[in-house]
């Protein structure tokens, strides 16, 4: 995988050195908080409810074993022995002390990591399909492009003070696992009539206060034109995006208020102007990046486990069924390690678990790990024959939960257990749902279901695109939870629809149970998923299940 160049290394070290001096000046009183806050945010350091929080970038979710071990060591040395993997494929440490942060950043720099552009009104960490480079359905690995975008966007002088933050997601597969339609820019690899790969460019998607599905501004963009084209989009946004109102400052509002046709015209005009000055990246640079992402040589043993081979161990069988995906190389497989143990905190891993993951990646996955936006860890290149050994090691480390894609594989933001912006808690709701549906046979009977929980309207928990979305709010001084149904974060992206009035904290789990009961009662067969059933029957039967019973109780 890609490793930092000397340029990257020098740049990151210099940033740490500067930040160290800024922290010293804050501590000795020479900088006020007003002066210091933008500086700390530029280095990923937030202040939350109970402590500081350091958000570390994991570009396009790709991480190697040495880096994972270093995260474990950082968690032990300067935090509380765990880290939280986020829906932006980053990791957050929840308990750093101000004086320790420069040392943490130096430790990150030792393994080519940093916390730059994990905050602020700049181009944020580029996210990507977590199966990139391994997925059977992929046209091409999108990560060379993601890395190119990382280099292009890092400290880009024109785009350091945008109207608002800016998020880019990329996928190389027709099956969108990167939620590209809910990003400021989504890039979906497609082929043109000549069979050449290029990008469909989607602009103006986003969740948050005003959720919108992104709109296609270019159906096919040749790869060579990508940087000048993105530069053009950013220029249009930077000049015309609203700066008068924080809540209307994202590009989705600009696209919405300006209209798609006009935005397209402006982007194309900027692109034409831009193209003349933009020779594109040096071919040698592109070639070097592509080489860094070349697929590991996979030589699966002939005698390997396939899903057709009966497996003796029912736990292993169940885990293979849910947590193992098809690899582009027959005999190889992609393992999704669930960070959603029953009753656990979605996305959390202890330092010991991180070390186990690093060991497994080294031993079985060609030194690669991925962080998914669904807050799980991926071993992208394993042999099917090694699945029993991997499963056994994960079981020992408490990471063998066989629930990927099921009701207990919940996305949840940190919510009011940590986040200063939250209006209610999310984690306890996720914990309770997974406990309520603990029985894996019940989970499998319910089938594919994505529950996503956010603790405020900023929607870090992607609740709008959950099949069942849960939004925590403060309703007159009490935690209250609003439900949405029918959301979808894939290539058929849809914003969920509100069911009606919200539920108190002690009512929300029974409400989810009623939704599930309603679904089980109305589905046409076991093959009809919750989302398909919802699309067929609409909101009414679910509304009836949610509210008629509540009324009966109240009466």
């Amino acid at each position, binding site marked *: 995988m890609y490793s930092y160049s000397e340029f990257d290394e020098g740049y990151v070290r210099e940033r740490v050195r500067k930040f160290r001096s800024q922290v010293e000046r804050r501590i000795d009183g020479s900088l006020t*908080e007003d002066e210091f806050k933008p500086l700390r945010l530029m280095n990923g350091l937030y202040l939350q*409810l109970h*402590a500081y929080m350091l958000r570390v970038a994991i570009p396009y979710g790709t991480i190697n074993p040495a880096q994972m071990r270093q995260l474990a060591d950082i968690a032990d040395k300067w935090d509380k022995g765990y880290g939280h993997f986020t829906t932006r494929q980053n990791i957050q440490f929840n308990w750093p002390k101000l004086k320790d942060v420069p040392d943490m950043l130096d430790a990150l720099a030792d393994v080519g990591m940093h916390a730059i552009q994990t905050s602020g009104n700049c181009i944020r960490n580029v996210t990507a399909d977590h199966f990139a480079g391994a997925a059977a359905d992929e046209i091409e690995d999108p990560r060379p492009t993601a890395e190119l975008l990382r280099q292009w966007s890092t400290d880009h002088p024109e785009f350091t003070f945008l109207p608002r933050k800016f998020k880019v997601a990329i996928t190389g597969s027709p099956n969108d696992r990167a939620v590209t339609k809910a990003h400021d820019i989504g890039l979906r690899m497609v082929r043109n009539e000549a069979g050449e790969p290029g990008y469909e460019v989607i602009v103006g998607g986003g969740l948050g206060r005003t959720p919108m599905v992104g709109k296609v501004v270019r159906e096919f963009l040749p790869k060579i034109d990508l940087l000048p084209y993105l530069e053009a989009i950013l220029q249009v946004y930077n000049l015309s995006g609203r700066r008068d109102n924080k809540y209307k400052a994202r590009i989705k509002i600009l696209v919405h208020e300006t209209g798609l046709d006009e935005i397209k015209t402006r982007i194309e005009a900027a692109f034409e102007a831009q193209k003349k000055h933009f020779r594109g990246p040096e071919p040698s640079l592109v070639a070097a990046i592509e080489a860094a992402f070349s697929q590991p040589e996979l030589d699966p043993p002939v005698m390997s486990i396939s899903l057709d081979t009966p497996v003796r161990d029912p736990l292993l069988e169940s885990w293979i069924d849910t947590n193992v995906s098809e690899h582009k190389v027959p005999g190889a497989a992609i393992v999704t390690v669930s960070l959603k143990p029953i009753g656990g905190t979605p996305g959390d891993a202890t330092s010991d678990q991180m070390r186990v993951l690093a060991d497994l990646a080294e031993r079985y996955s060609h030194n690669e790990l991925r962080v998914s936006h669904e807050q799980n860890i991926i071993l992208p290149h394993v042999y099917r024959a090694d699945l029993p050994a991997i499963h056994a090691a994960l079981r020992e480390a408490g990471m063998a939960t066989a629930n990927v894609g099921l009701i207990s594989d919940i996305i949840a933001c940190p919510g009011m257990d940590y986040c200063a912006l939250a209006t209610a808690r999310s984690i306890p709701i996720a914990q309770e749902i997974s406990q309520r549906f603990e029985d894996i046979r019940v989970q499998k009977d319910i089938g594919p279901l994505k529950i996503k929980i956010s603790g405020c309207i900023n929607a870090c928990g992607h609740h709008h695109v959950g099949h069942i979305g849960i939004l925590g709010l403060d309703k007159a001084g009490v935690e209250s939870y609003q439900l949405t149904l029918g959301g979808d974060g894939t290539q058929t992206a849809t914003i969920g629809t509100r069911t009606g009035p919200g539920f108190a904290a002690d009512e929300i789990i029974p409400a989810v149970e009623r939704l599930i009961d309603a679904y089980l009662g109305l589905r046409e067969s076991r093959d009809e998923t919750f989302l398909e059933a919802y699309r067929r029957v609409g909101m009414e039967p679910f509304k009836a299940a949610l509210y008629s019973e509540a009324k009966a109780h109240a009466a």
Partner: protein
Amino acid sequence: MARAFTPKIVTANDLFEGDVIYLRADGTWSREHGDAAVAQTQERADELLAVAQAQQDVQIGAYLADAELGADGRPLPIHFREAFRTRGPSNYHHGKQAQA
């Protein structure tokens, strides 16, 4: 008729540790909600907040929070957010609840 004034305390986060702190009547800071000085009038609340905000080298983000007096006369949080801040997260035994 003017609405009854809800008593206020001043709270912030500690600059160095990042944890939650409360302003005492003498202008120093405590880790305990119960130690906070209680303002019974808006004037007193503004006064306390000014004392806190002058301490840029100690605290971050000082603000007024509603409180009520417990049986022992010490202030208790009213809003659930402030109650969480006296304890720590609910998923792990970390933060103030672990130090108590």
